[in-house]
């Protein structure tokens, strides 16, 4: 199986499908899906070979593909969460500065 060719074809198919479905909004969706394909390249290759050799069946392949998408969502959630924490930390720092200044005011 020529996996590189399959990956290119998949990307082209995704772009075409997303453009039909979402028009102008397709850009963001396509970028997410391309990221999915790129970051999952090695796994997709291995899973395709396992499927072709009969070591895993169609349902199992589908579960693996879905799990990879779920993991990408999880990674995004962690990223968002860590940024939120950093923003909260920064707010606290500002409040702490204001607080220190206020405490220092003469009564």
């Amino acid at each position, binding site marked *: 199986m020529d996996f590189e060719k399959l990956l290119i074809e998949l990307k082209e198919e995704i772009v075409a499908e997303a453009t039909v479905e979402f028009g102008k909004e397709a850009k963001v969706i396509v970028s997410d899906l391309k990221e999915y394909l790129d970051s999952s390249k090695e796994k997709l290759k291995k899973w395709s070979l*396992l499927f072709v050799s009969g070591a*895993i069946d169609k349902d199992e392949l589908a579960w693996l593909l879905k799990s990879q998408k779920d993991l990408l969502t999880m990674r995004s959630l962690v990223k968002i969460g860590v940024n939120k924490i950093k923003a909260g930390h920064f707010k606290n720092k500002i409040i*702490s500065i204001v607080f220190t200044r*206020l*405490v220092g*005011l003469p009564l």
Partner: protein
Amino acid sequence: MKTLKNTCIILIATLTALSCASLYDHFTYTETIETKLATLSLMKKSNSPFTENEDEVIDLQNQLEKMEIYEKGKKKNEITGKMWELLSSDGHLVGSYLKLWEEKETLSPAFIEEAIPQIEEAYDLMLLFETKKDKQSQNALTQFINNL
């Protein structure tokens, strides 16, 4: 002047408390590790018939449900709540794995070998996120309290 200053201090303290993200929760951390170990151990058995492992599956489903309810019940904890939902619901990760096992009765060894690292990574991401809360938010709050 003193009253105004005190009012400002109380207001700032309240704002600080409200602005914090959910804090590190040791119960969440240890329960996530326990649930991870229970999940991986059960997955390793999924090349044997589902019916022989049904009791353990129910125990794990209950544990996942308990954690999802617990995390969703905490304030400012949407991200962790969403991650538990992603892990346990029927359409995703562990939930869908157990469903597939039930439907097929046994799963292939090659599939189990590929699925385990996927689930392991999901739990590791949750543990990592909990640790991030520890290092950043809790320290910020402690620092603020120490300044009082």
